[in-house]
């Protein structure tokens, strides 16, 4: 059988331009790995520069592809390079670059392994880039594992720290469990359609109508991804992992990994089984409402900054899920709003973690009171953090406002009472959210510095660069959102998937 199939094997046509971003990054990974062998211990920081430059090099083919503009399809439709995948690849690469900037000083000063760290980080980013292009169950799954497995190890990077070990193990166990659940759902879909291509599956699901089998498959897949994007009630791992992992890794997990999860979800739901909307819409409705409400309410009670951001990240996930709750009727708006939200969220959250890194580097404490009086001795950091917090809370003129506006717009554009109720829940939640974002602002602006220690903070250059990039991106998304949102306008993609 296998032999017979092998005889018929035809070498697929490879479009090297389309694959160039992935190829460049793969080469960079090998380069960093090799360089690490020959670089002496005291000059390990060179590897971080290599990783950063490598990521910038990866941007080049992404830009040429975007300028070229043609949609490219490979492997019988399993791997696609279109606007949607390019904007997301760019997002992952830039977010990765910022994470490199955030990590370099942290690793250097903490005395952690460096070369391996970059290799794993870049591998995870490569997995995310593959995810953006996957249109097939197998490639989606491979990409997902590719991006997750390095992340499990990164979470445990502080190897002498018990909490970090716990974080790594917890993340690994729950991640694998989620993958298994999801894989079971996927296998059901494959059994139904006899193909792993999302387009084939979509056609079969449309023909079959809402059978129990499809319902089962959809529920399994959605639940599996709910773990990945830490949607309530499958979020319990997130705060522990975020708190235990090294802070730059937390930034990476809460932004890039999470975004990749949402991308996979969009692909599967909107391309794989859009016809089963009667099943997945209510699921997402409940998930979104629960996720933002619970995430926010628990965040209110946090005193540790990173834990607060962990729950904030859970709550933000709820907002990102909102458009899917009315995904069938909302049309183009679903993808546009979700991609815009991911872009804003990446810029803002990475920036916020940058400030946390800069401040904790001095104060050596993780509670909110550690931020006390920040405005009096480090006004620049305090203002930057204020901008990020305002953006997360959705206050104009920051990116968060337009992201939230887009999500509300998507939900309301579908019309009907369900959309209006969900939007109202979202509106109330954005008010609750300010209560804890405002709490941190209050510490920074209105409370005295702990122990009266008002020595200025020295911010390492790499961190300054990261903060500069993220502040600019957050404000640009708020004041001239058109420049960025234009890329999120993906009507063509949606046009292609409408049943």
């Amino acid at each position, binding site marked *: 059988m296998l032999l017979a199939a092998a005889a018929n094997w035809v070498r697929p046509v490879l479009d090297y331009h389309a694959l160039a971003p992935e190829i460049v990054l793969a080469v960079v990974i090998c380069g960093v790995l090799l360089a690490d062998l020959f670089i002496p211990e005291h000059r390990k920081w060179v590897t971080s520069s290599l990783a950063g430059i490598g990521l910038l090099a990866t941007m080049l083919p992404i830009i040429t592809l975007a300028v070229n503009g043609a949609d490219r399809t490979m492997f019988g439709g399993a791997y696609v390079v279109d606007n949607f995948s390019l904007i997301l690849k760019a997002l992952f690469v830039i977010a990765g670059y910022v994470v490199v900037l955030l990590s370099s000083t942290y690793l250097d000063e903490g005395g952690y392994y460096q070369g391996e760290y970059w290799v794993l980080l870049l591998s995870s980013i490569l997995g995310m880039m593959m995810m953006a292009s996957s249109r097939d169950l197998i490639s989606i799954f491979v990409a997902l594992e590719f991006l997750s497995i390095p992340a499990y190890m990164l979470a445990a990077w502080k190897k002498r720290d018990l909490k970090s070990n716990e974080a790594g193990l917890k993340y690994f166990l729950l991640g694998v469990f989620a993958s298994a659940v999801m894989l079971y759902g996927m296998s059901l879909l494959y059994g139904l359609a006899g193909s792993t291509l999302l387009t084939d599956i979509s056609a079969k699901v449309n023909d079959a109508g809402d059978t129990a089998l499809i319902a089962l498959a959809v529920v399994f897949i959605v639940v599996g991804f709910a773990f990945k994007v830490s949607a309530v009630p499958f979020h319990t791992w997130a705060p522990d992992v975020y708190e235990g992992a090294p802070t730059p890794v937390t930034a990476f997990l809460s932004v890039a990994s999470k975004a990749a999860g949402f991308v996979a979800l969009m692909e599967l739901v909107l391309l794989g089984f859009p016809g089963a909307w009667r099943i997945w819409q209510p699921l997402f409705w409940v998930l979104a409402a629960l996720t933002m409400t619970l995430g926010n309410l628990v965040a209110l009670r946090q005193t540790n900054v990173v834990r607060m951001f962990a729950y904030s990240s859970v709550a933000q996930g709820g907002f990102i899920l909102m458009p899917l709750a009315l995904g069938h009727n909302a049309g183009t708006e679903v993808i546009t709003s979700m991609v815009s939200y991911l872009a804003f969220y990446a810029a803002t959250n990475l920036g916020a973690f940058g400030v946390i890194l800069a401040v904790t580097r001095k104060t050596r404490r993780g509670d909110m009171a550690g931020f006390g009086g920040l405005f009096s001795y480090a006004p620049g950091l305090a203002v930057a953090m204020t901008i990020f917090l*305002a953006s997360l809370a959705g*206050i*104009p003129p920051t990116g968060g*406002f337009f992201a939230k506006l887009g999500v509300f717009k998507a939900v309301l554009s579908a*019309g009907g009472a369900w959309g209006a109720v969900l939007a109202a829940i979202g509106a*109330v939640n954005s*008010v609750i959210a300010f209560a804890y974002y405002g709490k941190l602002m*209050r510490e920074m602006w209105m409370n005295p510095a702990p122990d009266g220690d008002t020595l200025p903070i020295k911010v390492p250059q790499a961190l300054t660069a990261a903060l500069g990039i993220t502040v600019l991106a957050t404000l640009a998304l708020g004041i001239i*959102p058109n420049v960025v949102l234009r890329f999120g306008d993906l009507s063509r993609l949606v046009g292609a998937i409408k049943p």
Partner: protein
Amino acid sequence: MEHLTSNNTLLNVGIFLPLLGVLLMIFIPKKDEYFQKAVALATSVATLVVGIVIAFKFDYSKAGLQQLHVDTSWIPVIKARYIIGLDGLGLPLFLLSMVITVLVMVYSWNHIPDPGNPKAFLILMLVLEVGMNGVFVAQDLILFFVFFEIVLLPMYFMIGVWGGENRQYASLKFFLFTLFGSAFMLLGFLALFFKTGAESFSIEYLMAHAGAIDHNVQLWIFGAMALGLAVKVPMFPFHTWLPDAHTQAPTQGSVILAAILLKLGTFGFVRFAIPILPEAAKWWAPVIGILAVIGIIYGALGCLAQTDMKRLIAFSSVAHMGFVMLGISTLTNFGISAAMFGMVAHGLITGMLFFIAGSVKDRYHTLEINRLSGLLTQAPHMGWLLGLCAMASLGLPGLAGFWGEFPAILSAYKPADGLSVPLFRTLMVIAAIGTVLAAAYLLWLLQRVAFGEPTAEFADGYHGHAIGDMHMPEYLAWTPLIIGIIVLGVLPSLMFKVIDPSIVNIAKIVKDSVGG
């Protein structure tokens, strides 16, 4: 609708010039406090000069039209456009916001509240001005919303950092209340957008197309928008943030809050809520009217119970904004004109009262009415000004307050067609009782604070420091307000003439709309 688009960069400069000052100030070291103050003051004065030029370029014979109109693409994906324009409705408040900012800057020359740091304080004030100026000219709902929200954070920090004892609580309360209202207002905007064919957020477009929306949906949308605006006004029962915010805010913050920020709410009703959804406005008008009158009485009773001078003035704002809302709820030309006049008058008078309260606090380090007495003997000029403002605030004819309050009450005698006449006449009577109460609490305040002999505690001044009368920055900052109060009181037609054409348009829209 016709627009006048000449000189259309002027308006942009008028809105965004303060940002230039912010940029300059960021690069001036924190220690050069005088340089900081000078740049901030110069920026606000330059902005006011632009405002005055705009006022001269403004064609008063066409005050009903959008002038200096700008309409450019902004965010096509969302279909929000950058549309600004000035008509007779926006002009007085646009100018008021510029004037108040200058006066507050002058006052700040030697009144930077604890814990100091004029750099941050003044930068926040300039950012605040951008939002305030923008709101009064925005002609696109998303743009309006952005400006509406820009004022939040600066005011939050102003109260929270430079405020009184209970500042953290007050600032958060202020922020959460406003955010809650505006979140629903935004949903209202979006619903409006989709129900009119998802074409535009432009107020003009929506005015033309919102009539086709299903009646019940209109009611919901108006309700959502009114919620956001009512919190800002603030109307009873959403007013609870106001006494706290006002009492805790530094003097400058209280003045700006009273003079400008409260108007964002009432202005929103007149600018877009009523013209876009006149039918729904008719349905909601009795509710608004009743809440307004409750606000009048409740605010007045609240005033009588206060022991803190600043808190008393804050509660009087609730009552005064009640008169404004009563005028608006009649949906008549007469009532809305009175409301617009009331907004400006309240801005001048209450702004002035907060200034005085701030200066009293500076001298006596307390605002407890029981401990104060004999201001007239210790600081006669300030005492007389307090008397004048109290008279203006209670609506004495010949001063600005009268022309906001009296016509508003009178307008309830004959509300727009379709509104219940008996109801509004009842409201009129109750509101009239409110003016009596206003006279009571203001005169009582004046009597306790200004008349009599200084209490034993302050007979020799505060801890040996003599209580000084007004000094230069106070004279400079207050004189324009006093002039405004008197001139508008004697010649109210100056303003009525400007706002009238726009309001005639609105009243016509209400009249033409079917039933309610």
